[in-house]
Each structure stands twice: as structure tokens, then as C-alpha cells.
């Protein structure tokens, strides 16, 4: 009974964490939400699914929104939140994986806590978003958990695999590399006279690989190459996998040493210190470094203990391969895109090994007290991440949506705006262009975050003063000022 209560508390924490941007701001998080909302509304209106451009090609997210909107009778805008809700259910999958590997309930409890409150803040910043990747996240963790079952139902595996393959290509790639790593481990087990999992794993990878190949080949035939799937990058990924696998096989020390070097690089890259792309994230503070150390030391202990475990090694190899590949593939725009996608899966690995360290620590004196302190500490330390999601550059607010909706019919000229606002404008059918050198007589739409964080141009953030220095703003006519949203008429450039 106690176990169920703790698990329920963890689940409630997960739900509130990922839904916090919606609960506080009353608007979806990250611009992609508006794209998928529009797609879902189109499906509802037209009554059919169209596979025409990039955002249609992995339709799981759009279909989930439509499904819940239809069966619950709620608006698609509200039903977008089913995506973060599904992400929160990943906590149960992490619990299952950890329990299965360690057979220790404290390890199983601390793994989802580590994922939800990771000092990398990936769970809130990624899980709260309505994206293809997020829609596939629950299935990714579920497939890993399903893989651990001794006699998995192949029909069930087929359905889960199909769901993931049409969910997102990168999540599918993570699972494919995971299955491949497991297969390599099985082949080596065969040489040791243990062929228990080999046949099962060959069947699983064949099913998954066939689905992955066929769907992505179909996508390729429709839209051509898409990031990071290209001949060259796949070849690079294979060699990175080779390299990571060798490091993991050399020994425990090499695995840990590699992670000791990779984790700081990952943190620096995540906080905008590594890539040659301007990001609006604040530089990492000394307090955050402390939080990370408290998180990473147990994680490395966990890796050291469970280094030989085939599941942990496969998760380690697959997630590390992608994060290392993202870093070595370049510190430019493409590298950053792949990096942010990879990081969310890398945090699963870190959360798992963090949780797996507790069987050892709890055996020591004061182990349980330490466990409680660290768990509470992680929850408190995640405040920075939560505030980043609530007021950060990716957050939308209800007032922005409402005001722009009201203004829609009054706007007869195209508005100049950044990419963040353009997602919302595209959803509301407002004519717009992205930022360029301003000319007299043009209309500019700015929101509060443009003044705080700057202007988003693709993945690049630039200061507002680059396009609109103070003297330009002060000389503009302010046509609308609604607290968050402002419309300017350019007077004098």
C-alpha cells in the first residue's frame, strides 16, 4: 500500500510539473504547439489525415489531440495538454525499468524523481511542450520497459513500434540504436554460451527496423532528406556507436571516465556555452553547478555498479551515442538541433543510473536519510528550471493569444514579428513576415519576451536593439499596447 502511495505522489508531481506552463500561463508551451493545434483542427474539419509536409509526416501528435478532443468533447486547444500528460506517465515506465534492473524499490522510486526534477531541466522544458518528440516520449520509455519483459507479446510490440515510428523519427532512432546495442550484447552472450535473449531480440529489431525503414522511406519519398537522417550523418552515427560501444566494453573505468568528460560538455552545450549560436539562456550559475554535482555523483556510482547490466549498457550506449554524435557533428545550427533532441533521451539514462546508485548508498549508515535529503533537494533545485519554462523564451501566455485573436479582424497590413510570434500568427491566420531591416510605414508586432529575451530567428536569438534600437522604438507610433503585445508603426529608421 505504501508503495502505491509513493508512486501516486511521484505521478502527481510529474503531472503538475509538466502541466505547470499550461496551469500558470493558460497557453501551450513552445511554438510547435500552434502548428500541431492547427493540424489537429484541420483533421477535425476535413475529417481526414493529410500527409503533405514535414509536420504531417509523423502524425501521432496530431492524431492524439484529435482523438482526445473528439472523445472528451473538449476544444483541441485544451486537448493539446494530453501530450504533456502522457509524458508525465513516463514516470511509471521509468519506475518499472529501474525496478526490473535493480529489484530495489528505493532505486525504482528515485529514478522517476531524478527524471522529473533533473537539474538539466529537460523534463519540464521538453515534456511541457506539444511536439512530435514529446508525443513519442511516453512510447519510447514504454518500449524500453516492454523490452525488459521476458516473453513480450509481439502484437503488442508491433503496435507500440508502429506508434513510435509514426510518432517521431528521432525517438525511433533512439529505440533502434537501443535494440541494436542490446543485440550486440546478446551476440556476445552467445559466445559465453548464453543465447537466452538472442532470438527474441532478433525478432524485435527486425519488426522495429522494418517499420522504421518503411515509414521513413515513405517520408523520404514525400519530402526528401530530413535532419538528422542523411547518408553522411547516419554513417557518422554508426562510427560514433562503434566508438561508444568500444569505450563501454573496455571497462568500468573507461565508461565512467568518458561520462565524466561528456556530462560537463553536455551541460555547457545545453546552457548555450558551446554552440556558435546565440541563445537567450542565462549563463549557468555556481548554484546550478552544485545541483548538477549532487545529481551526477550518484549517477556515476549507479553506472559503476550496473555497468555490466545489458539493459543499462544498451541504454547508455544508445543515448550516449546520440549526444556524442550531436556534439561532434558540429557546433552550428544543425548540431544544436540534434543536441536538444538527443539531450532528452540522455536524461533518461542519467535518471536511471542516478536511481540505481541507491541500492549501494542505502546499505550505508544514514543512507535512507541521505536518500530523502537528496530527493527533496532535487525537487527544490528544479525551481530554476520550472521558472525557466514558465517565463522563459518558449512560454506563451493566454493574454497574447487572446489579444492577437481580438486584433485579427482589425489587421489589414502584414505584421513584422519574430519566429516565436509567427507560430501563433500562422495559427490565427494573421498575415506576417519575419524580421528584416525595417522601413518606414511598416508594422511591427512585439511581445514582452522580445524585450526580455530578444528576437527568435529560427534557432538563433538576437537582441531586439539589432533591429529596433531604442531611438527607433521611441520614434515609432504605438498603435496597440496590451501589456504583453505591442504593435508599432515604424516612423523613422
Amino acid at each position, binding site marked *: 500500500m505504501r508503495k502505491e502511495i509513493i508512486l501516486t505522489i511521484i505521478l502527481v508531481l510529474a503531472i503538475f510539473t509538466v502541466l505547470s506552463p499550461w496551469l500558470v500561463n493558460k497557453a501551450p508551451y513552445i511554438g510547435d504547439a500552434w502548428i500541431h493545434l492547427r493540424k489537429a483542427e484541420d483533421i477535425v474539419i476535413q475529417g481526414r489525415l493529410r500527409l503533405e509536409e514535414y509536420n504531417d509526416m509523423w502524425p501521432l501528435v496530431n492524431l492524439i489531440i484529435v482523438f482526445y478532443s473528439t472523445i472528451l468533447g473538449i476544444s483541441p486547444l485544451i486537448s493539446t495538454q494530453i501530450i504533456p500528460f502522457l509524458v508525465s506517465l513516463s514516470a511509471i515506465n521509468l519506475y518499472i525499468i529501474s525496478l526490473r534492473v535493480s529489484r530495489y524499490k528505493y532505486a525504482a522510486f528515485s529514478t522517476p524523481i531524478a527524471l522529473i526534477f533533473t537539474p538539466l531541466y529537460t523534463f519540464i522544458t521538453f515534456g511541457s511542450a506539444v511536439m512530435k518528440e514529446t508525443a513519442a516520449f511516453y512510447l519510447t520509455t514504454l518500449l524500453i520497459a516492454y523490452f525488459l519483459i521476458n516473453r513480450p507479446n509481439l502484437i503488442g510490440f508491433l503496435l507500440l513500434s508502429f506508434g513510435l515510428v509514426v510518432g517521431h523519427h528521432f525517438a525511433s532512432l533512439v529505440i533502434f540504436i537501443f535494440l541494436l546495442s542490446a543485440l550486440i550484447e546478446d551476440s556476445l552472450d552467445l559466445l559465453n554460451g548464453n543465447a537466452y535473449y538472442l532470438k527474441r531480440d532478433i525478432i524485435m529489431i527486425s519488426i522495429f527496423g522494418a517499420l522504421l525503414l518503411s515509414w521513413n522511406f515513405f517520408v523520404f519519398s514525400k519530402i526528401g532528406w530530413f535532419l538528422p537522417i542523411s547518408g553522411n550523418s547516419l554513417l557518422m552515427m554508426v562510427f560514433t556507436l*562503434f566508438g*561508444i*560501444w*568500444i569505450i563501454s566494453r573496455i571497462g568500468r573505468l573507461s565508461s565512467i571516465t568518458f561520462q565524466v568528460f561528456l556530462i560537463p560538455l553536455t551541460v555547457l552545450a545545453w546552457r548555450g556555452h558551446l554552440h556558435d549560436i546565440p541563445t537567450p539562456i542565462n549563463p549557468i550559475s555556481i548554484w546550478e553547478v552544485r545541483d548538477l554535482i549532487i545529481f551526477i555523483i550518484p549517477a556515476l556510482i549507479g553506472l559503476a555498479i550496473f555497468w555490466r547490466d545489458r539493459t543499462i549498457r544498451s541504454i547508455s550506449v544508445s543515448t550516449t551515442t546520440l549526444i556524442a554524435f550531436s556534439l561532434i557533428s558540429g557546433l552550428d545550427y544543425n548540431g544544436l538541433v540534434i543536441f536538444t533532441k538527443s539531450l532528452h533521451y540522455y536524461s533518461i539514462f542519467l535518471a536511471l543510473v542516478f536511481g540505481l546508485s541507491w541500492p549501494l548508498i542505502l546499505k550505508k549508515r544514514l543512507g535512507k536519510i541521505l536518500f530523502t535529503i537528496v530527493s527533496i533537494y532535487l525537487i527544490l533545485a528544479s525551481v530554476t528550471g520550472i521558472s525557466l519554462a514558465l517565463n522563459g523564451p518558449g512560454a506563451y501566455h493566454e493574454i497574447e493569444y487572446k489579444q492577437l485573436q481580438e486584433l485579427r479582424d482589425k489587421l489589414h497590413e502584414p505584421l513584422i514579428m519574430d519566429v516565436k510570434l509567427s507560430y501563433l500568427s500562422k495559427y490565427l491566420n494573421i498575415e506576417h513576415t519575419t524580421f528584416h531591416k525595417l522601413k518606414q510605414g511598416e508594422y511591427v508586432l512585439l511581445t514582452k519576451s522580445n524585450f526580455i529575451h530578444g528576437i527568435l530567428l529560427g534557432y538563433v536569438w538576437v537582441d531586439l536593439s539589432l533591429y529596433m534600437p531604442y531611438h527607433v522604438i521611441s520614434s515609432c507610433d504605438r498603435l496597440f499596447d496590451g501589456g504583453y503585445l505591442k504593435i508599432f508603426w515604424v516612423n523613422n529608421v
Partner: protein
Amino acid sequence: MFEYILRSFYRGSGNVKMYILTIAALGAILLMILYAPAGYLNEVLEVVPKPDISISDHPPGTEMYYGYLNIGSGDFLVISSRNTSEVLRLLIGKDVRISKISIGCKISNSTVRGYLEDLIKGRVEVLECMDSFIDYAAIVEYDTFQQITGHCPGEIQKIYLRNYAADGIAAPSAYTLARDLLKIVSFHQNLLYASSTILLSAICLILGLRSSNDIKQMLTWLSEMHIPIRKTLFYICLIYLGATIIGVFAGYGLAHLMVPLILIFLKLFFKIPYIYAGLDISSIIVILPIALLSLLSYILAILWMIFRGR
């Protein structure tokens, strides 16, 4: 039978696993030492603008006048030609639009600008910063140059710039420096290649000899099973050839992973510009002879053990 031999060789000292890891780890180190610096310099050569010039006192070439003239309060480098845009293209390696009289960005706020504007009764253009000596120089058309030299004292030199040729003196630049460094590195590459081949072969020989007890045991088992020695040897060679290929690929993968990561660390700690210098796939071919030589050493050691045992 193949599986049985493979399983036997997977365990014990000097086993296949150890062999693959040795080939991979040493192959990776070798690749990193041999090709990473050269790869980096090669990438630098791609990135750095190529001045591609030589300097001579005699024609042919683009005539260039230069000198340190006392302008206003101090001496400043003044460059002139009848074709200033061509001179600038040769000096900095890219086309820059210039006016009749232009000055570098670092001296735009000095008294030079005002002095020159007063002198020519016209506007002086400020060039964009180029992180080179041009940022501290004035570039003027030939007729204006004559006007300036009439008022400002200083010694004038005349040289001819032309595209790089064997004669003349190559102008020192980041490009020529990187190119010369690459030559030095290439020389060291050959030395390293030879020494590392010997090293890797010796390691594999020792590894092969270490596995003597296992092999003796194996041969005893196989003879009890009436498996001909020739067949055993064939399978052993096949297993280790496969292991060599896996080791080579894994070694390349390791090197391919480590080189950019090390470069990222160099960027972080020493501010060395990060230029992606991932190893080219063709470098696998270069380590294949070393790996095959190592394989040969290993097989030789095993053969020696077998025949000594008989």
C-alpha cells in the same frame, strides 16, 4: 565446429575480445596522433583566406607603393597602387569595395581621418574590420597618394605583388604558416607511422604468445575430437581476420569520436578555435596494413606455439 572454436577463443588470455579491444584502442590512438593534427591544419587551410601571393622587386605583377608616412601626429602605413582593389584582394584574399581613400577600422577615430579629409577636401571611407594589418593602414588611389606624399614625410617603397609562384618570397600569412606546418606534420606522420606499426605488431605478438596456454589446451581438445590441425588453423585465421576488421572499424569509430571531443575541450580551455576535423573515412585504409601486420604477428605467434608444441 567454427562456433566451438570461436567460443573457446572468446575466453581466456589473449582472447578475441582482448584482441579487438587492443586493435581498436591502439588503432584509435594511432589515428588520433597521426591524422588529427594534419586534419585540423587541413581544415584551417580551407577556412583561412588564401592570399596566394609572392612579392618581388621586379615586374610582372601588380605595382604597389607603401611606406610609413607622418600623418598628423604619428607614422601610419599607407598603401597605394594604380589598382588598389587588386592589391587589397591579393593582400587579404578577398574582394573589398574601396573608395578613393580608405582607412582601417582601428585608426578611424584617430587624427588621421580628419587630417586626410582636410588634405584631399573629400570624404575618407572606413573599411570594415578584417583582423589584419589593413585595420591600421590607409589605402589610397595613386594620384591621391602622390598628393599625400607631397605633404607628409616618409620613405616610399615600390614592390610587385603577383600570384604565388616558385620565385619571389611567399608573403607570411596564416595560410602559408598552416601549409608549412602541415608539411612538418606530414614528415612526422611518416616517422610515427613506422614506429607505431612496429609497436602494434609487437603488442599483438606478445598477445599471441600470452595465449599459449589456451591454445595448447585448445589443440589438445581438438586433437581428441580428431579435428585436423589444418582446419583448426584455417578457422583461427578466419576468426582473427574478422576480429581485425571489427577492431579497425571500432578504432576508426573511437578516433572519429575522440578527435572532435578533444577539439571542443581545447576550445573551452585554451580558446583554440574549433574547426571540425573529424577523420576522413579513407583513413581506415591507412590503418588496415598496420592491422593486418598485427594480425600476421598474432598468427605467427600462435603458429610458433603450435609447432613448438608438436
